[in-house]
């Protein structure tokens, strides 16, 4: 792929230029994927965007990773999952973003049905709450798998053997469902009735 080199860094020599191009390619390839996975964890666009940028900024500080095509994605996901999972567990910072997100919704989306939005935000809160109660590894595995990553990729990101992913996922799912049911007295597959 040919891309126009941008001013990512001081491009005073060709090695730096090469690094800048590599970084840009990585950014293009992973930006929306990293954003989306972080969005699932933190639940609002502003925070997901900040965290995704943070992951890329950290990558930028490790230029030795740029050339390792097979590793750089795993590294990014690993960093992003740590950032996102920690944010999921930290409740204090969340507030600021939630207020921003709420305002954003109201200002930008007159077509949104308030009832559907209320349902969605209630469900999201519940799901995230349950995720925050799982073992970090379990929560990360569930999100990674749900985001469409292969077992091999999940194994690389989490740092476990690929042939144990199925077993661990099944266990994580049992734990998720058990906790969900205990907390919200409802079967995850049946939509809630009424308010």
């Amino acid at each position, binding site marked *: 792929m040919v891309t126009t080199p*941008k001013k*990512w*860094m001081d491009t005073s020599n060709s090695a730096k230029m090469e690094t800048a191009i590599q970084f840009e390619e990585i*950014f293009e390839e992973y*930006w*929306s994927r990293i*954003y*989306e996975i972080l*969005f*699932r*964890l933190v639940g*609002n*666009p502003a925070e*997901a*965007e900040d965290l995704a*940028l943070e992951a*890329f*900024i*950290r990558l*930028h*500080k490790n230029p030795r990773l740029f050339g390792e095509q097979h590793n750089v994605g795993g*590294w990014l996901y*690993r960093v992003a999952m*740590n*950032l996102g999972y*920690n*944010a999921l*567990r*930290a409740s*204090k*910072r969340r507030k600021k973003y939630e207020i921003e997100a709420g305002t954003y*919704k109201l200002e*930008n*989306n007159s077509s949104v049905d308030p009832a559907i939005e209320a349902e*969605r935000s209630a*469900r*999201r809160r519940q799901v*995230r709450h349950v995720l925050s109660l799982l073992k*970090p*590894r379990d929560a990360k595995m*569930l*999100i990674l*798998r*749900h985001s469409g990553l*292969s*077992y091999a990729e999940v194994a690389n990101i989490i*740092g476990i053997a690929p*042939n144990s*992913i*199925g*077993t661990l*996922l*099944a266990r994580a*799912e*049992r734990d*998720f*469902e058990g906790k*969900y049911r205990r907390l919200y007295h409802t079967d*995850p*597959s049946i939509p809630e009735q009424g308010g």
Partner: protein
Amino acid sequence: MHPNNNQLLSYYDQQLPSREIKQVADHLALCETCQETYHSLISLSAKVNNQLSWLDPTPTEEPIKMEAAKKRLHKQLLIQNQSEAPMSFSKSFWSKLGTIMLRPVYTAGVILLILTLSMLIPSVRATAVNFLGLFRIQQIEVVQFNPANLPHDSFQRSSADFERMLADTVEFDEPGEPQIVSTAEDASDLAGFSVTLPSELDEPSRLSVQSGSTTTIVIDLPRVRALLQEIEREDIELPDELDGATVTIEFPSSVTAAYGDCQFEEAEPHRSRTCTTFVQLPSPTITAPPELDIARIGKAFLQLLGMTPQEAEDFSLKIDWATTLVIPVPLYGTSYENVQINGMEGTLVQYNQEGGNQPEYILMWVKGEIVYALTGPGTLEDAVVIAESLK
């Protein structure tokens, strides 16, 4: 043989190696027990994924456009570069010391500590090769001081002069940015010593290796004296031979594991209430000529903290200055005690951070050649439980 849960879920998720797909499919067609297991597995899987689908971004929550994202990234990188590029001597030096000497040693304390280090100088002018005396941390002692006894105002005024003096006389080899690593093994490889992490905590949110650095200080005695005068402690005597003497401080590579919501970008790290950090490094060493009377300098240091000469003498008798890291902590708002960590002696300081009402701790201990420091929110018990879970 029946396929196990791992194979069944892998089959459902289409993650089975191709050679096993047919095997499992054939077996499932014939085995009713397996069909039952399979169906309960996939119905659970479907339920959970259904639930997780709530988290998927809706069309209004899609990522911002690539060009806009690049712009934002570019801007952030520029900000970072601007704040890092000048990387003034003092900023990196303070933040480094801040990491190693740890937070509650307030700025004044750190300045005192550096002053002490800068006074760790030979009693005779050293020749370049005559560095035999060695300081190595084997023990940690805490000394409390009353900040009210420090000459605050003049300290504030003089700290700029002091930094300038350091900049003129101190050579600090820039250790560079910390390297982020993903496992303790990588950290061990990079840092050159065996890194251990507490099993009591989840995986660190950030694991980084800071390469070692060497600081060389050439004592400019007239300026040190001027500084002492400025802080109204010209009563502390320094021998003339100190002038021009050289002291070398070596910080080996250190490894910092951060847990929870920590921030690293500022020079003075802001630690939120959920941030726990665990630092480990081989003992820093200070080389100075064998003639150096460390005890005398140590006593001068204690006097700077507000002790009378007699009190400094008494304290000094209890410790071996060549192997003891003395950490000053303010008298108010902190408490300290010695604790046992798997049979080793540790020093625990508890304090309330400015504006915070939740206690925080610093627990330090030395095992073999390695100095460990654990900081975080919580109580003595929390700290000890984590420290004892070192793998």
